[in-house]
């Protein structure tokens, strides 16, 4: 009874389990990235801008394929612009916190 007479059935229910329930990391990282890049731009803090770049990368790595690349790209560009702006305004190197 291995080869079935029944016809091949449907497509997958496409894992309806709400993807947002499973892993919130990319969303959190996206939000964090935007917050940090805003901080970096407004308060002219270089380290904020760098953390924003990192957050945006992490969000990208954890993202699901169904997610919008536009969102990802926009957070990415925002963080890069935060870094560039902080350096244009203040070309000094970043000082370590210690």
């Amino acid at each position: 009874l291995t080869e079935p007479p029944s016809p091949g059935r449907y497509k997958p229910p496409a894992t309806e389990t709400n993807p947002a329930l499973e892993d919130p990391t990319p969303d959190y990282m996206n939000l964090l990235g935007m917050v940090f890049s805003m901080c970096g731009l407004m308060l002219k803090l270089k380290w904020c801008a760098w953390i924003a770049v990192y957050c945006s990368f992490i969000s990208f790595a954890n993202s699901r394929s169904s997610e919008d690349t536009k969102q990802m790209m926009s957070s990415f560009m925002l963080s890069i612009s935060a870094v560039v702006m902080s350096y244009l305004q203040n070309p000094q190197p970043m000082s370590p916190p210690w």
Partner: protein
Amino acid sequence: MKKLYIFIAVLFIPWSFSLAKYDEFEDGDDIMEYDDNDFAEFEDVSEDTVTESPQRIITTEDDEEEATVELEGQDENQEDFDDTDTQEGDTESEPYDDEEFEGYEEKPDASHSKSKDPITIVNVPAHLQNSWESYYMEILMVTGLLAYIMNYIIGKNKNNRLAHAWFNTHRELLESNFALVGDDGTNKEATSTGKLNQENEHIYNLWCSGRVCCEGMLIQLKFLKRQDLLNVLARMMRPASDQVQIKVTMNDEDMDTYVFAVGTRKALVRLQKEMQDLSEFCSDKPKSGAKYGLPDSLAILSEMGEVTEGMMDAKMIHFLTHYADKIESVQFSDQFSGPKLMQEEGQLTKLPETKKTLLFTFNVPGSGNTSPKDMESLLPLMSMVIYSIDKAKKFRLNREGKQKADKNRARVEENFLKLTHVQRQEAAQSRREEKKRAEKERIMNEEDPEKQRRLEEAALRREQKKLEKKQMKMKQIKVKAM
């Protein structure tokens, strides 16, 4: 496509650095003006001596920086004056007149005596230095980013290789058992794609269908997030393994009503808390499977003893003992509805939909450090899955068991209704009030006063009737009670 974006964006960073650095040189112009004032004392002698000899004694007191900038300033000075009067050019070629430089000679003496004093080198603040070394934090950051990107690419490729290794090993078994292997839901007709469906950089799906007894089987290869460096670092603290999750949806007529689970104790405790069906039907704690010859690591959760007896036949025990290290959990349930939904009090008005399902969760050996070869060791587990499908179809409860099962299900439903009774009452009450309000509004909006009166009377009459009915009912109940 995504990779291209990354590379372009990464190129922006060093470019922006170079842009930022050019701003510093604009400051040179300011210092040139100071030079002019310094030469002011020599203007009396001759206007042209502003040009001054290019040699300028640099005292050790000056900052290094000032020195370099002044040299630059000197250069610019000379350039400017070259363009203007030729007079100044002439005076430069004249031999130096000692008289003109009276006050000047003292200076070399002064500097001589001062050179005997210890040289104090002033620390130039970092931002005034023009070396790349002062930007070490930035270089560190960029290196970190590059490391992250490298890890992403390596991790992604590893997961990809593992997934395909798994698929190649299992392809034959799957294709011999299922008519449709691999479907991503995009085609209109059900045709076999014969490929894994990549949901993520670490999750791969495979839908198989077209077998007797089951509606379909969804296999999810849930790998570790090797593409995320943070995750890799976190895993160094807390080892975890890749998992293969298989969910078989059974046809309604092909499975009897029972709930049963077997797996590691930890997994079962967690499932019992999380899963709706296990928590409702399997009230006891996970029991040891030693009675059936299972290793200590495995435990059993079951609705009733008969189910356990029926499930634990020789072949199943053989599978479970031999591959115990790879089995995380196995769950057969006719009331499967997923994990418990956390809902507020007022929302739960209907029982969640249930489906007859068999769930399997296997751990890939290697605990994170898997190689494609390890995938072969999972093949017998797939055979176990196939065997379980057939077994679930064949296994039927006897009469007693069936009665117990039905009672259990009725009990669960009743409990649920009781819980929601209050909510449903409230819901009904609010609906009735809504209707009344709507009626009243209609009456109020009615422009014709005559009509208004009539509608009001009609509403009043209905109210009275209802009251009477209620009273009648109460009387009947009282009579019955007596």
